[in-house]
Structures are given as structure tokens and as C-alpha cells.
């Protein structure tokens, strides 16, 4: 069994987001970039599967991103991935998520992978498009936001649990399949120093647009939504602080919620 983990490098969640003066993007200089926290579960789950099962041949990590994204790849190699693919080309910077999914599908389609793991959503774009779109491009089944994953002994299917609105759903899926990972899917561990050292020697294959046969056609078939006019979030008008005895403030709150906000 071959496992592929598709990851993304994103601004650290505590980073202050500033908008570029032309509004075409956020300011990226000086922003601390990290491996997406949901992808951390994906790589950890992949490595744990490899440790537990003798039939897992390899764990490969793939990233699309600028030169700097190689740092996120090193993090995943230190956790225990065997090798990595870095899709690196300026032509990739302007792709939307569907086009990125189509690109990744073109690169990995003939790679012989049985299982693809990915975080349930990216904490920068907050969309979660890439996983399901990649599964569709490969015509594979996928299960989103999985909280428990078990690959069958024969390696032909998996059982997954996830929390949907108000219920816990248990599904069985034939492999090959794509899973997007929810927080808490597995116990997280931190890379040891020897692993960090070893990570530097693991192979990273870099591919550019010219290495993807029919690149223009692959990405031309889908997507093309253009993000622009970035802005800070709309300010919330200043709120009312209710003062006085508890009995009074509570009465006033209920009145406001009913008459002014019409919320109850």
C-alpha cells in the first residue's frame, strides 16, 4: 500500500493579517508560515499506519507552493514521511483550488497510491475544497472530516467515522480513497532530533509546469474563480454594556434581544 499526504503551508493562525495596498492579496512579507494544523493530523495518521502495518510500502508527501514551502515538507519528512514531491512554478501561484486539485490529480494519477490523506480544510482560505475536488478529479470516493480511521486487514477498504450535524456517521469505503482529517483523528507526536536530521537526507522531487503533460489543458477545464479586493473584516458596531444589578441587566438584555436584535 502506498500512501500520499497532500499538505499546504499557511500563515500561522496567530499572525496578524495585513492587506496589501493594492488589495490584490494579503501582505506576505514577514508572515510566519507553518504546516496547516489539520494537515499535521494527516501526516501523523499516515506515519502511524506505516508503523502498524507491514503492507504500507511508503508515505509520500506532496505540496504545491513557492520555494519557502519546502520548509513544510521538511517538517513532514521529520515526522516520518519517506519522500516528497514539491510542485514549484510561478505558473502554479495563480491557480485556484479546483485547478490546483486538477494539477495534483494529473501528477499523482499514475503513482499507484491507495490512500490519500489531507487536512479537512486549510486555515488560510477556510474552504476545504481541495480534498473533495482532488477525489473527484481522480474519480475516487472520499470521506470528509474523519475522526477515526481503520484500514481493513486485507488493505482493500477502510472504515471511517465522522461527526456530521448532530450525528456520528460510520462509513465503509473501497480503496483507493481520499480522506480529509479532522482534529483529534490521532495522537500527535513531535519529531525527535535524529528524525529532524534524517529528514534533510530524504529525497524531494521538484516538478514544474513543463513536467506536467498537457498542463494548460488540465487546468483550463475547471475553476478560474479570481480572488481580489481583499479587505479587513467589516467592523462590528460598538456594543452596549449593560450596567446595574443582575436582575435589571438580565431583564434589559432579554428586552434588547427581543425588540432590538429580534434574536429570540
Amino acid at each position, binding site marked *: 500500500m502506498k500512501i500520499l499526504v497532500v499538505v499546504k503551508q499557511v500563515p500561522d493562525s496567530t499572525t496578524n493579517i495585513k492587506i496589501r495596498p493594492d488589495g490584490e492579496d494579503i501582505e506576505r512579507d514577514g508572515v510566519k508560515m507553518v504546516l496547516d494544523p489539520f494537515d499535521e493530523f494527516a501526516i501523523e495518521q499516515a506515519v502511524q499506519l506505516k508503523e502498524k502495518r507491514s503492507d504500507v510500502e511508503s508515505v509520500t508527501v506532496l505540496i504545491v507552493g513557492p520555494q519557502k514551502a519546502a520548509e513544510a515538507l521538511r517538517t513532514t519528512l521529520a515526522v516520518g514521511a519517506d519522500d516528497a514531491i514539491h510542485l514549484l512554478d510561478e505558473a502554479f501561484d495563480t491557480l485556484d483550488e479546483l485547478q490546483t486539485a486538477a494539477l495534483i490529480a494529473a501528477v499523482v494519477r499514475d503513482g499507484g497510491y491507495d490512500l490519500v490523506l489531507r487536512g479537512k480544510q486549510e486555515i488560510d482560505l477556510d474552504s476545504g475544497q481541495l480534498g473533495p475536488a482532488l477525489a*473527484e478529479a481522480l474519480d475516487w470516493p472520499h470521506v470528509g472530516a474523519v475522526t477515526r480511521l481503520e484500514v481493513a486487514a486485507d488493505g482493500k477498504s477502510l472504515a471511517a467515522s465522522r461527526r456530521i450535524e448532530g450525528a456520528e*456517521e460510520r462509513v465503509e*469505503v473501497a480503496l483507493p480513497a481520499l480522506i480529509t482529517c479532522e482534529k483529534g483523528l490521532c495522537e500527535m507526536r513531535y519529531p525527535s532530533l535524529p528524525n529532524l536530521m534524517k529528514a534533510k537526507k530524504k529525497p524531494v522531487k521538484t516538478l514544474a509546469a513543463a513536467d506536467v503533460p498537457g498542463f494548460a489543458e488540465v487546468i483550463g477545464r*475547471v475553476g478560474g474563480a479570481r480572488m481580489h479586493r481583499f479587505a479587513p473584516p467589516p467592523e462590528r458596531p460598538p*456594543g452596549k454594556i449593560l450596567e446595574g444589578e443582575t436582575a435589571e441587566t438580565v431583564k434589559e*438584555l432579554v428586552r434588547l434581544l427581543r425588540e432590538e436584535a429580534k434574536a429570540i
Partner: protein
Amino acid sequence: MTNDILVFVEQRDDRVHPAGLQCLTPARELAGKTGGQVVACLIGEGIDQATAALEQAGPDRILIVRDPALKDYSALRYRTALAAAVEHCDPKVLLLPASFMGRDLAPRVAMRTGAALATDVIELTLTDDGALDVVRPLYNGKATCHVTFPADRLAIASVRPNTFAAPTGGSAAQKEEIPYAPAPGDDRITVKEVAKTGGDIKDVTEADIIVSGGRALKSEENFKIIYDLARVLDAAVGASRAACDAGYQPHSRQVGLTGKTVTPKLYIACGISGAIQHLAGMRGSKTIVAINTDPEAPMFKVADYGIVDDLFKVVPALTEEVRKLEL
């Protein structure tokens, strides 16, 4: 391509998801500009009650894809069914609720139909040259951006729940059945079990009102006052990461960056200071109430109404006051 606006109206167990009906409001506005019709699509088994509820929201036409195989949501079967509806009516725009199901399904249908896609949008309009233009929040709500679609292909957008009010007062719509023709391999996902969780308390992602507690609750037992208030409001119970990490509540109730993102009509934050990672998950709520002893708590900066007081006094009093309303 027609000028019609197609809306996927999610249902489970023959109950329509409110967020699906809410999509009909921006759909009607867009249809007014394109001169097309509002077409709603229901997918499932049975779904008579869902169809009746949908008619109240006034779409011009309803496409029904009905099959025993569509009883439970499967990403494969539903993408096949919805892609068939897209092919049948060839709309200019497809809207879905940005619910769990809508967000899971939209990217597959977009890839399958060669469309473009934006997720979790809060404003929708058409540009002068007839392309869909939407606004969506991103970077945990720390920014918004416009997304402009190519005019020459299907535009798909999932709409953030509780951004629009569902239309009412509709009457009978024209109904058409579309057969579900399974695509090869659609049976590769089997739903084994759907177990309801949370007892009589709703999940944070499906409630109009959320009462949320932080570490200031100090224990799991003390969360009882949060649950009492939630019951009288027919609300869900949420919690901060600190409260979940301390074991007061399960992580399934966690609101925030690494928990769930919610946009209810009313969010009542009790003893939650308002760390960035929590605000990321709830700042899109329509009305926010903060109850905290610390007047400097960041939650007061996003709150519409604040009470600087002890939550152990305020929350039970609030429960009593709401009970008097007999909602």
C-alpha cells in the same frame, strides 16, 4: 447555458436544512438580474415533507432526484445526482448551503461539471458583464475578499448559513422528477450507521442559537447552568478550546479555529475571554452577547451586548427571564 439559478436544498430524514432554504433568497435576487427562474433541487428517498416545506419558500420549479440508494448522504451518489440536475437545467449559477454536506459536495460537483467555485460566501451579485461576483471571509475571519467568476462557465457558490433569511409564502411549484442513474463505482461508499449524538441538545452547526461556556465554568458539573439556558432557548451548547481541553465538554462542542466555525443568529458567550482562535469560529454570528467578570475581555469588543458580572449569577437569572417568555 440558461439564465436559471439552481439551488441544492439539503434534506436529511425528510427535513430540509434551513440553510438550504436560505439560499433561495440570494437565488431570487440573482434570477431577477439574469431574467431566469429559481430552480430548487432535492435529493433523497421519499422526501415528500421536504418537498412541501420547500414549496413554502417559493422556487419556480423543483427538481426531485428520488431513489432508495439516496437515503443517506454519499459524496459519490449525491455528486452524480446533483450533476444530473445541473445537466438537466443547465443553470448559470448553482448555490448550496455551506453546511457540512454542501461544503463536502460542492467541490466534487464543480470538478465534475467543469465549473468554478467559491465557498462560504456572504454577498452575491452580478457584474456588468454578467459574471457572478461574491464576497467571502477568509483567514479565520481576519479578512474578506471578492471572488469573480468566469462568465462562460457554471458558477457554484456555497452560502454561509444564517446570512440570509429564508423566503416564505410560496405556493405550488412545478415539479419534475429526474431519475438517479448511478455512475460506475457510485457504490464504493457504504453508510453503515448514523447515530444521533447529544441527546436533546442540538449540535452547534445546526442551531440558530448557541450558548457557549469557557474555562470560567470551572467544571463539567457547572456546565449545567449553560445547558439549562440552552434548553429554554432551544439552543446548542458550545465551548471554548480551554473548556474542552480541561475536559468540561467534548471536543465536538468546541467552537473556534480548530473546532467548528458557527454563524448562528445569536451567540451567548459565558465566561469566554475571546482568544483569537475562538473569535475565528464565531465572529460571523449575527448577534453576540458577552457575559464576563473581566471588563477588558476581548469578547466585549465583538459583542453587541455585554454584561460585566459573574456568570454564575447572570446565566441562571437569564434562564428564568427567558422562561417567562414561554418561547
